[in-house]
């Protein structure tokens, strides 16, 4: 496809969601990405927002939105629509999610024995949304020999009340290691390999029976089973149903060190949804040059073998992520460079990029860095906001938006979806346009 109505750069949650939504609006879309992105590290929950002193994501969004520099100041109203749309999309792909932004936070245990506040989770974690009953236990079960999941350590950690942060928790936590068929003999065992095994009904059945036996051996009474988030990948729906049937207890998948299987499942669903709606995804195609004419982007060129591959576009969406995603680079001289268009980016001075205690999420002021936008998510120059957008047919979504502290505020997914919703609507209702020609601007890249 050498022409597209919209090219989206970045194949993470924001990029794919924008592409799917635009395709639903009838646009011909292509997603270009250097490679896979942050969604491959995700652990399942859809993080919308947290804020001190409030106990639902919706309230947290409201709190963050009161700061005019925060993306939610513009996007707060889009959040419910975006989440509703997302909910139907994932349900359609047999990856239904539970919970809503008006629900109170619950503490989801994780694969290192910590917890994180959640409200919207995929079905594999939905069992955490219900309050713990008196006397109810959490039994953490892990495959023996799996180096990324240590049930005893996890249980020991989860027995510390402080880890639950004042949120509702089980009275007792236990950890159990189980031999699963064939794992001991394997030379290579990571989350995806185990998930592949769970996708195979023939392997799954005896494995689940072993897990069930191990759980039963811990005693009777109400309990929920914590498993590592490896219950199937391509066929997660069937695997989860099988697990619930055999283990016959509520199951909670605990997020692990990357690669994140829940994220990969979501990626697969979004990719299929995009294809089904006629969109195209080109991986391994980093954008190296953009042609512009005044305030319009005319085409993007990707780094193909021996030459560039040029796509003429009506609109461009940057979903390249912040620094973590590679959409921004922090140069050693303190400049923060947006890597595709060289858009003006704002951020703290270099001596405040990483400060203080590395274990404090607030110790990375650099996380605030990003591109500032107008109400239509078009990039503006923070030094000259009154001058109108830098480009009329460009939108910025996701982690690249300035003003969010995605770690401390846990707002990455909410912003990704809400901005995807808003950008798609903005383009579909007339922000886009015909395809043209003119001068080439090399993509700045930044130094690494």
């Amino acid at each position, binding site marked *: *496809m*050498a*022409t597209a109505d919209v090219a989206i750069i970045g194949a993470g949650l924001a990029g794919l969601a924008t592409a799917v939504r635009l395709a639903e609006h009838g646009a011909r879309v*292509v997603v270009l*990405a*250097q*490679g*896979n*992105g942050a969604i*491959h*590290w995700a652990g399942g929950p859809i993080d919308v927002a947290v804020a001190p002193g409030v106990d639902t994501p919706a309230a947290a969004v409201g709190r963050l939105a009161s700061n005019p520099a925060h993306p939610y100041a513009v996007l707060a109203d889009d959040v419910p629509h975006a989440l509703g749309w997302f909910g139907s999309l994932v349900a359609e792909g047999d990856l239904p999610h539970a919970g809503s932004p008006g629900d109170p936070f619950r503490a989801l245990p994780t694969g290192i024995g910590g917890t994180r506040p959640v409200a919207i989770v995929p079905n594999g974690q939905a069992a955490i949304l219900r309050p713990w009953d008196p006397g109810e236990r959490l039994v953490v079960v892990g495959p023996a020999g799996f180096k990324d999941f240590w049930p005893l350590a996890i249980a020991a950690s989860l027995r510390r009340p402080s880890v639950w942060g004042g949120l509702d928790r089980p009275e007792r936590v236990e950890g159990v290691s189980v031999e699963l068929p064939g794992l001991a003999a*394997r*030379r*290579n065992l*990571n989350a*995806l*390999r185990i998930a*592949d095994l769970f996708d195979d009904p023939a392997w799954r059945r005896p494995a689940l029976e072993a897990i069930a036996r191990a759980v039963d051996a811990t005693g009777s009474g109400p309990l929920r089973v914590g498993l590592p988030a490896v219950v199937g990948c391509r066929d997660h729906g069937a695997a989860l149903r099988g697990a619930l049937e055999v283990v016959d207890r509520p199951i909670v998948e605990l997020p692990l060190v*990357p*690669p994140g299987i829940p994220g*990969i499942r979501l990626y697969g669903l979004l990719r299929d949804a995009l*294809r089904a709606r006629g969109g*195209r995804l*080109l*991986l*391994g*195609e*980093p954008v190296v040059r953009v042609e512009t004419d005044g305030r319009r982007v005319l085409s993007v060129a*990707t*780094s*193909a*073998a*021996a*030459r560039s*591959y040029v796509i003429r576009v009506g609109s461009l969406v940057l979903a390249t992520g912040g620094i973590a*995603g*590679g959409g921004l680079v922090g140069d050693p001289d303190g400049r923060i460079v947006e890597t595709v268009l060289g858009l003006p980016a704002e951020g703290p001075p270099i001596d405040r990029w990483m400060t203080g205690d590395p274990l404090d999420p607030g110790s990375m002021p650099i996380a605030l860095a990003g591109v500032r936008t107008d109400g239509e998510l078009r990039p503006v120059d923070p030094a000259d906001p009154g001058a109108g957008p830098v480009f009329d047919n460009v939108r910025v979504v996701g982690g690249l938006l300035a003003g969010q502290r995605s770690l401390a505020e846990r707002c990455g997914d909410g912003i990704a979806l809400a901005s995807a919703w808003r950008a798609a609507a903005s383009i579909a209702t007339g922000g886009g346009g015909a395809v043209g020609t003119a001068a080439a601007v090399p993509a700045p890249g930044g130094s*690494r």
Partner: protein
Amino acid sequence: MTIAALVDQALDESVGLSTDECLKCNICNTVCPVARVDDRFPGPKYVGPQAQRFRLAAPVPVNLDGRRVHSPDVTVDWCSGCGWCTTACPAGVKIAEVNSRARASIRAGRRPRLRDWMIGQTDLLGRLGAPFAPLANWAFRNRPIRALIELTIGIHRKAPLPVYAGRPFRSRFRRRGGRVGRPGEPVLPPPDRAVVYFHGCAANYYEPHVADAAIAVLERNGFEVIAPPQVCCGLPLISNGLYGQARGQARQNLDVLAEYARQGYRIVGTSTSCTHTLKAEYDEMLDLHDEDARVVAEATWDICEFLVDLHEQGRLDTRFGRLDEDLPYHAPCQLRSHGIGLPAMDLFELVPGLRAVDMDHDCCGIAGTYGLKREKYEIAMRVGADLFRKIEASGATETACDSETCRWQIASATGTTVRHPVEILAAAYAAGDRAATAH
């Protein structure tokens, strides 16, 4: 060139230093088709950027408990070179290329295996077999003979070996008056009306019908075709670590092709493997960075890429007739490495009635010569299993794929006819012509 520029160039071209970009994110491991099916392969992250840190730049033999060891690696040999890791890497690490060099380094410390050497001699095998095509074809399909070959040389008895076509394409082309760059031939028209055809070993010895279809389509669109003297692109040699011979062949090709490239002629190929080798691997794998290599790389086009480009300029003849069929399409790994999208699918969209479906499967398993090998055949078949199932389930009578080794793999595994996309287009043109004359 300034020192800074020299250094920049060296760093840009350095496959080894690209491993500096590795974020340890494990994404490459999630897309590797071989790691998915075989526990012996630890995955691209382990054998690529991770193991690279334990390799000396210039490997020297080391005495390890009485054994002389040249390279610390073993398991990297399971890598098929499909390139998906490089495609999926968010940081731009050239993982597959690093692996390829590591495999070559293992071989450098040993005498080359007869099999690996033989597999690399595609021109020789082609020339030797062509005059005896019926006999050779019979032999390659004779079970006891195949069992013997497997035992002695190490090519799996069920590996999909191609079928000799008899007279090679070059010979047929010359006979029917095609241009091959001999003195006395008519002057070649300017570059906007002529192209150089790089046919590759496959079209030459085994699939001249693919070459015929390509030429028919090119001529129909107003291009004279010249097939100047050429030898195997060298990819089978590169894949099997025989860089020295590969460089020799590369030089032979570059000496001829650079002439045309400098005059502005495009070099069009029907094998995504050959064209990728010309575009990228002479530079990245063989370290050929001279002007000849550069101009040839920039002038090389996959044929579907070329036709799509024509279409964008409004110059493609779009009088395709109706082809009422379901057509599964498999995009070869090598095509993705080109980074040109899916031009065959774009072209199929222009053919009325043609319901082309991208099978969206990562790798058919053959990975060039990998799946031919005795110890790797089973892995290759498992890698491609889902693809074969999907194709069979589609009920289609033919499938399309741009790479010859993939075609042979898929044909062998599914029993369907597998065509190069340009054959489909030629058929569509023919259908269009018939419909026109019928009126």
